[in-house]
């Protein structure tokens, strides 16, 4: 192996070839990439410079994702990697990296929404005789009911997001570095960003 992160092996700004006058040093070391895939959690701990630790996630299946406009964060299952701006290979092999667009399980967010606003989210058009979910038709105390009524106007959800809720999968982006901290956390895509990436994904297909 011997991955090193020095610049002594590169040509200088003027183009001159730099002579090698010393061996590789340990403080210049680089390590093999983690390439975290989807699967049952497998994380290796690495001792790094100064005695500190890095958590190299080799396989992950869930992460903590935030829904920005509602300001909540839930732990969810990661389903698949859908887009990567740097490398299509990483999409094909379902590699989790920072900045990868993924699909996550929508159920924790839907459950929270229905408990918080008492309105259905991502339900298909009512089939005849289909009962409302337990969450929506639960009997509530007057205090709780008042709270829910005061939140009524805020309960609107962007139509693009609503569609994703019907399929049960939300688009999110990973913002942590799985190979460094051992977690795949991020936020749900909304607004302009969501439109941008949906367009990119569609043009790929």
């Amino acid at each position, binding site marked *: 192996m011997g991955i090193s992160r020095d610049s002594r092996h590169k040509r200088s700004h003027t183009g001159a070839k730099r002579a090698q006058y010393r061996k590789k040093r340990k403080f210049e070391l680089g390590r093999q990439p983690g390439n975290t895939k989807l699967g049952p959690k497998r994380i290796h701990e690495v001792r790094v410079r100064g005695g500190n630790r890095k958590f190299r996630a080799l396989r992950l299946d869930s992460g903590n994702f935030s829904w*920005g*406009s509602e300001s909540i964060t839930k732990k969810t299952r990661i389903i698949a990697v859908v887009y990567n*701006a*740097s490398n299509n290979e990483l999409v094909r092999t379902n590699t989790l990296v920072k900045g990868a667009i993924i699909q996550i399980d929508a159920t924790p967010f839907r459950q929270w929404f229905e408990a918080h606003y008492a309105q259905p989210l991502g339900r298909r058009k009512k089939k005849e005789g289909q009962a409302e979910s337990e969450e929506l038709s639960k009997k509530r105390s007057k205090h709780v009911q008042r709270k829910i009524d005061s939140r009524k106007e*805020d309960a*609107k959800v*962007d139509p693009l997001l609503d569609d994703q809720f019907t399929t049960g999968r939300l688009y999110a982006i990973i913002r942590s570095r799985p190979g460094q901290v051992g977690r795949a956390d991020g936020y749900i895509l909304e607004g302009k*960003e969501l439109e941008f990436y949906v367009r990119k994904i569609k043009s790929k297909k």
Partner: protein
Amino acid sequence: MSEQVEKAFQKQVGIFQNPKASKKVKAKNLRWYKDVGLGFKTPKEAIEGHYIDKKCPWTGEVSIRGRILSGVVVSVKMKRTIIVRREYLHYVTKYNRYEKRHKNLAAHLSPAFVGVSPGDIVTVGQCRPLSKTVRFNVLKVQKRIQKGPKQFAKF
């Protein structure tokens, strides 16, 4: 709109752009900018513009510290970076005379500066390494005055 030319969504990290439609936040073009200090004016284009540049001293994540130098712009052909030429005199003791020397410097040019062309005088400030050779960021541009033929200018 037109600033999304890359494969990844370009935005300023840290400002949240999607408050709910019902909330009253009407500030279109939510933009974060800062003052670089040392008396350098932040350009209007940095505050009102729409470009995204993480290496811009006003709207990006670099800080200006260390040396402040100036020079003449030599080439503007690179994407968002320029070459600055700094001339100086070197004293040769044996002959009691000076000789002309120059050094070229690669500096990052923020999109806040429009219409920079070779010959302009530019003030650059030191920042952290932005690429293999770029350690400076352009802070101020002064258009070259249309004078006579090229002259040696010491800074």
